[in-house]
């Protein structure tokens, strides 16, 4: 066979072979090209067709899902009311096999009912909050301090009317020119480890704070002596000077078990995730920063009214919008923010779920315009008077509070505060503002549209604002310009704001007061203006002897009638002298499960008070 092949390998044979090879190659190439084009076309066509079919199926399913949703859930929504987004969501849900196709709102509702049901069965009361706990330091973390009121209630508390009444204390006496305070303790209080709460615990806690916590150092400086009496279950504190607001101060200090804490040398540095011994209806079982929650469990030795909830969980969220979503979803029963409201823009959305009622109360704190009283022309009362008429309060209220607020009075203090006096409402009247300015000698002699000051120069006010008040600042600038006053906005971060404010490097600034801020010093907001005080948020811009005397008078009495008289005088002073112009009184809106009743809010801590945790119960159908 091999020879045969050899014989045929002549030149002609080779030529034929190569021709055949070339032909074959050409044919193969053509075949390949044809096949390539066909296969490419086919695969392209196939892909496009498959894609079109998938899209068609998807769209029809989404539409069907959207249409089926309301029908299945029994809601009255028509398919057209749900957007394409909701339809896609409903479809994905059906793919994931989450039971019946439901409208998202209905799903939220069902889940909310589930949470409510479980809560009613003695499970957990879940509170969503944007007040994030940063450290498991029971004494060092300020937010933890507020939440621990439930496990370690302070001696006193504020009731819904703003009066200071006993909590762990049954009553109290003030003697010897307001230097000697005696608190009589309730005798049915027990720590969660079974030990009784004694006057020694109160004495220890107050002294401990004075010694260890920088913010309570005043106790160390002024507390002369303290004694306890087993006979009448009382503790007496004697101060080296008259102190009239001790009952209020003691509404903020959590009481600690002496037998546990006396061994802890540096309490500020004491980091422990729990459990902590407490004497409230619940004790703090766990601080879990990584899970973002606090867990309170029932105090087995609590002898007061038995709470309905097995435990209380505080879930903290770094983002307030996410916190609101958890409520809408039904994963939380209520919302709490110290000195703040549920975000106004999200209220409507939450209302739509139909699962929440809202508690509305005027905030004890407020937003105000603080003038620099040490600088002309702001130091001129007539100028401030004109300023007060130049501001469109209704517009600010509408834009900043979305209707959950009101135009304030000249007397500064909001109506939710004890001894509130009805003073004249602030009014927007730019014409009147212009007339007052003209009468006071501020005229536009060079007719450039800007009024001149008494030095003959154009008035250009600097409005110092922090970024959170940017819109208010813009509005104020516009209002001032309308009455012939030029204004510049100077935006500064919080720390720069404090520095500039403390150095009086501003003409006007927008700031806020907190509930505690309104109560500090001689109360009724006086702590913000008294020039003898310092602090991050305070203006210390008022050194009028009349005002300082009023503060001292308030600080020297505990008599309720006298206090009320002084409070009225102080509000009149604010109304007449305008050391600050309130911009709006806002409301604290707190949502809570419709299935539970018995909630109330106190002006200091809102709904986070011990009474709510023992009184809230399932609403009767």
């Amino acid at each position, binding site marked *: 066979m091999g020879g045969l092949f050899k014989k045929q390998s002549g030149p002609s044979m080779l030529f034929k072979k190569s021709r055949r090879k070339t032909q074959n190659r050409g044919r193969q190439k053509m075949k390949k090209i044809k096949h390539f084009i066909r296969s490419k076309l086919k695969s392209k066509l196939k892909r496009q067709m498959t894609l079109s079919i998938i899209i068609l199926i998807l769209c029809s399913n989404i539409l069907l899902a959207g249409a089926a949703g309301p029908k299945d859930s029994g809601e009255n929504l028509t398919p057209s009311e749900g957007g394409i987004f909701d339809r896609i969501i409903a479809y994905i849900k059906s793919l994931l096999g989450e039971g019946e196709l439901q409208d998202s709102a209905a799903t939220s509702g069902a889940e909310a009912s589930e949470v409510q049901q479980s809560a009613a069965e003695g499970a957990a009361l879940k509170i969503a909050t944007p007040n994030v706990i940063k*450290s498991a330091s029971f004494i060092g973390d300020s937010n933890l301090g507020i939440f621990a009121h439930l496990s370690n209630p302070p001696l006193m508390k504020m009731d819904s009317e703003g009066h200071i009444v006993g909590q762990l204390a049954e009553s109290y006496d003030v003697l010897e020119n307001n230097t000697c305070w005696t608190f009589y303790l309730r005798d049915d209080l027990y720590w969660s480890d079974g030990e009784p709460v004694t006057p020694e615990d109160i004495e220890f806690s107050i002294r401990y704070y004075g010694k260890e916590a920088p913010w309570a*150092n005043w106790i160390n400086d002024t507390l002369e002596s303290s004694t306890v009496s087993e006979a009448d279950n009382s503790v007496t504190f004697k101060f080296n000077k008259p102190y009239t607001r001790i009952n209020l101060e003691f509404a903020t200090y959590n009481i600690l078990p002496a037998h546990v804490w006396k061994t802890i040398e540096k309490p500020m540095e004491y980091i422990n995730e729990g459990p902590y011994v407490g004497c409230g209806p619940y004790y703090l079982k766990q601080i879990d920063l*990584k899970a973002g929650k606090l867990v309170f469990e029932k105090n087995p030795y609590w002898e007061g009214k038995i709470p309905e909830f097995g435990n209380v969980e505080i879930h903290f969220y770094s983002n307030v919008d996410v916190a609101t979503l958890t409520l809408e979803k039904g994963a939380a029963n209520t919302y709490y923010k110290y000195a703040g409201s549920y975000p106004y823009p999200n209220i409507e959305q939450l209302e739509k779920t139909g699962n929440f009622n809202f508690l509305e109360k005027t905030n004890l704190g407020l937003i105000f315009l603080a003038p620099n009283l040490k600088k002309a022309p702001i130091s001129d009362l007539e100028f401030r008077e004109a300023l007060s008429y130049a501001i469109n309060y209704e517009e600010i209220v509408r834009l900043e509070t979305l209707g959950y607020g009101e135009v304030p009075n000249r007397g500064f203090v909001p109506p939710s505060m004890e001894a509130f006096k009805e003073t004249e409402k602030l009014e927007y009247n730019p014409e009147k503002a212009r007339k007052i300015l003209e009468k006071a000698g501020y005229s536009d002699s060079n007719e450039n549209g800007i009024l001149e000051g008494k030095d003959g120069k154009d008035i250009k006010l600097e409005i110092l604002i922090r970024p959170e008040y940017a819109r208010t600042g813009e509005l104020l600038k516009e209002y001032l310009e309308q009455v012939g006053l030029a204004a510049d906005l100077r935006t500064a971060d919080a720390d720069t704001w404090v520095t500039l404010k403390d150095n009086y490097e501003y003409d006007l600034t927008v700031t806020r007061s*907190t509930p505690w801020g309104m109560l*500090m010093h001689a109360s009724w907001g006086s702590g913000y203006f008294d020039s003898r*005080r310092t602090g991050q948020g305070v203006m210390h811009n008022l050194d009028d002897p009349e005002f300082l005397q009023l503060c001292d008078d308030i600080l020297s009495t505990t008599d309720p009638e006298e206090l009320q008289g002084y409070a009225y005088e102080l509000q009149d002073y604010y109304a007449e002298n305008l050391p600050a112009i309130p911009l709006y009184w806002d409301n604290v809106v707190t949502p809570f499960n419709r299935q539970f009743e018995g909630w109330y809010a106190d002006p200091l801590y809102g709904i986070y008070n011990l009474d709510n945790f023992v009184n809230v119960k399932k609403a009767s159908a």
Partner: protein
Amino acid sequence: MRKVVKKTLRYAASFLLIVTLNFALPRLMPGDPVKNLIGEDVYVSEAVMEELRIEMGLNRPLYEQFTAYIGDLLMFDLGYSYHLHSPVAEVLRERIGWTLLFVGVSVLLGAALGTLLGAYAGWKPETKANRLLCYGFITLSCTPPYFLALLCLHIFAFKLGLFPFKGFYDVPTLGSVMHHMFLPVTVMALFSASRNFLIMRGSVIQEKGQLYALYARAKGLYDISILFRHVIKNASLPIITLLALDFGFLFSGALFTEIVFSLNGMGTLIYDAIMGKDYPVLQGAFLVIALTVLLANMLADLLYAIADPRVRRPT
């Protein structure tokens, strides 16, 4: 040898500069740490403020504070947090672990996904699928991570109820951690992948036109082999640089994702420390970030040498 010494000296100089900057930067910020610690509405006397200042060592002249800081650093003492009431080293140790878990996984996933898809998209940029992929990743890279995180949370946690809203876990179990980490990791990985994808795609488009790629094709190599054996090696050089830079981002850039998912990570730690003027925490955190970036750059140098023979060949 000389090169190694030169490089070591360069890294040492960088480290010294970093340490100095770490000390100076927090102190250049406006604001008083003591006032910040006391709070908004609390009144304390000047004497108490001064006591606190002494306790925190802030009453001493800056050069004394600096020498004390260097001294502590040499003893591996990062100081004590004003606000968190714990040693900084302890705080960092706890936060770094969790941050590494979610940002580290995201960066690695993002690198793998972005590199592979980017390489493929660069190799065949004309196909519809790749064009679509490219549009998708451009959209992702243009989307602020904060918005992307909120959007994912809204769809998958709120609407679909598939994932939790916050935290690293509900109960400290592996399942719970994975369930909680899925969304933040996905968001971060997608974001990281989008950057890697775009760089890799561009790089591959550039490389595939080179002669060596043509030669490989002429040798009869398959597309896949050309891409993964030859082109990807050269195209991945910018990705190595990006990854090295991402290590800094690893500890600080996840702030927005941490805020949306309420995660106690390094991002929020640094943010809170800036707001609270917590100098020791800031110094410690910056130091860790700087060291990680230095280390990552050293690794990048090594990887460059492995990936590119021109780097390791003496000139």
